[in-house]
């Protein structure tokens, strides 16, 4: 794999966003439409007590992925009601075309007391090409279970071989690395399968081997099929000190599979890494691969988890 970087293509601070959002365009996800590519992302507002709420917005690019045609001015999907799993944010939102509909798999966030947050995966459905989404119930379609005790999120769904496949993450532990710091979380990538996209059967195991250590955090799997092989990009980091220290921060990882079940990790073949300087020099995270025309594109965030936008790369043929 070899990716050519096309640079940062969207900066949220240069635009007026809905829901009082000011910064962050995190975890870009593409929906390829007839005349444009709609890129969803999560952006943030400060609530009454000064904490962040993540909202979903989108920006429409012309097919050349350079010209911005439109930017959402409305609420695409409401945050959850009082006490619901997605009351305090939706991040990320993954969209998948399903006939006339567009399915959205959301990670909903809710704030806790002993640890900062929990998350579950929700479903929402659009009948207007992804302009607005209606929730499939007030609760999640996938949440904590016997061996996946918390932090279920980052769903990526694709139809392969007549079945819906989901790659997602689940939390394995909350750990206090330093007495003076709040607990940090550890999460891993897993896989589930479904006949209807709603009811999921989970494999119940970590599918991507750790590279750093047992506390490695793995996130945002994105999977595509090319040259008879399934390819997965994801991001990974150290569990502690990942915000400020460059070496502990998110990097892009890569794995491949022939059967969608067994994955061989080989980050050296990812074909993309942090830049020497500039917007993606400290970290790279939240990758999303999509095909538009004959090209495979990679959307991703750079420094500060996407506070100042996302960038694009294209796969060399």
């Amino acid at each position: 794999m070899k990716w050519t970087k096309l640079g940062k293509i969207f900066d949220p601070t240069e635009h007026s966003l809905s829901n009082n959002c000011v910064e962050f365009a995190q975890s870009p996800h593409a929906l390829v439409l007839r005349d444009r590519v709609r890129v969803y992302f999560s952006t943030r507002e400060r609530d009454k007590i000064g904490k962040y709420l993540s909202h979903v917005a989108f920006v429409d690019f012309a097919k050349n992925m350079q010209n911005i045609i439109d930017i959402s001015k409305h609420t695409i999907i409401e945050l959850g009601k009082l006490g619901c799993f997605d009351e305090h944010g939706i991040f990320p939102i993954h969209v998948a075309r399903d006939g006339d509909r567009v399915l959205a798999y959301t990670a909903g966030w809710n704030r806790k007391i002993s640890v900062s947050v929990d998350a579950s995966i929700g479903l929402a459905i659009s009948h207007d090409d992804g302009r607005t989404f209606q929730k499939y119930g007030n609760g999640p379609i996938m949440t904590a279970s016997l061996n996946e005790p918390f932090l279920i999120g980052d769903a990526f769904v694709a139809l392969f071989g007549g079945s819906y496949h989901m790659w997602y993450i689940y939390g394995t532990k909350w750990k206090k690395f330093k007495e003076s710091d709040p607990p940090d979380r550890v999460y891993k990538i897993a896989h589930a399968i479904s006949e209807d996209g709603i009811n999921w059967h989970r494999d119940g195991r970590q599918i991507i081997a750790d590279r750093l250590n047992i506390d490695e955090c793995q996130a945002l799997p994105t999977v595509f099929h090319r040259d008879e092989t399934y390819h997965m990009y994801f991001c990974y980091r150290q569990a502690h000190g990942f915000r400020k220290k460059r070496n502990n921060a998110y990097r892009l990882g890569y794995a491949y599979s022939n059967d969608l079940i067994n994955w061989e990790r080989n980050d050296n073949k990812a074909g993309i890494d942090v830049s020497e300087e500039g917007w993606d020099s400290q970290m790279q995270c939240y990758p999303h691969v999509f095909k538009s025309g004959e090209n495979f594109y990679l959307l991703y965030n750079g420094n500060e988890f996407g506070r100042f936008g996302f960038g694009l790369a294209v796969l060399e043929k």
Partner: protein
Amino acid sequence: MFKWKKLGKVFDPRDYKNKSWMQEFAQSPSVLIFEKHVRVYFCSRPSPTPDDQYLSFLSYIDLDRQNLLRILNVCGIPILSLGALGTFDEFGTNPISVIRVQDEVRVYYTGWTRCESVPFNGAIGLAISHDNGDSFTRLGEGPVLSYSPDEPFLLGSPRIRKYLGKWHLWYIAGKEWLQTDTKPEPVYKIRMASSEDGINWIKLGKDLIQSKLGEHECQACPDVTFREGKYHMFFSYRHSHNYKGKEGGYRIGYASSVDMINWNRCDEIAGMNVSENGWDSEMVSYPHVFLLDGETYMLYQGNEMGRTGIGLAKLTSPQNWCS
């Protein structure tokens, strides 16, 4: 109509001063019958923390099978630990329901977690004992029954039964959180799920018991017993507001069913109401009905949601469960 003779309070946790985790409350009684004694599992609480928050622990007492008002033994330590940091049962395991299956004993329990915008949330966990119910180990760090699209929060109040070779779980699911002048108050309703192994569940997906106090009625503790070809459910219900005193507090309701799915509510024949005065004069709740040596008994909690202990009643007449 069922007629219950109240035999009085059998246990008051405040009588045992040296048990730090059992300062107050004996909630959600559930029995396991042994040759010489009846073990009553319940949930007890240490004193609240300075910010008025409680933990809740699984405990038990052993009652003399020949004289249920005689306590033979009180457990020395909590018999199930609380969950790890960030897990669904980090702050409590309450309410509970216990069942024996061959050489293991299972407890299904509600795990308590604390949230920012609402005070708490719950999901249902499972722990197993291989020492005849003396101690329990959780099956996993997460819940066996949790949230879904139409059950968005507050799963709890499990009652586990095995009928017709299948596992059945009656439980409650939250409907909505109501904003009040102080803290939000939940509304929850009785539901049911079935399973081949007691671990993987299929939810029925409907409210079983018609509300009597309006759409915001809270229903809990669906205690089901099978007699004379029918399923009988004693449960508790209350108003969603001002429920901490006599007026809006918990009462015991009753419903029956021939198929476990369609229930006919008929509180008038439950036969168990608050007393004129004393420990159960403001509320009665969390009924648990069991058969012992040819007699039918009900354990239940009284005022202040069981703060001062558990009481016992005996069914006197009719023994006709067909009515």
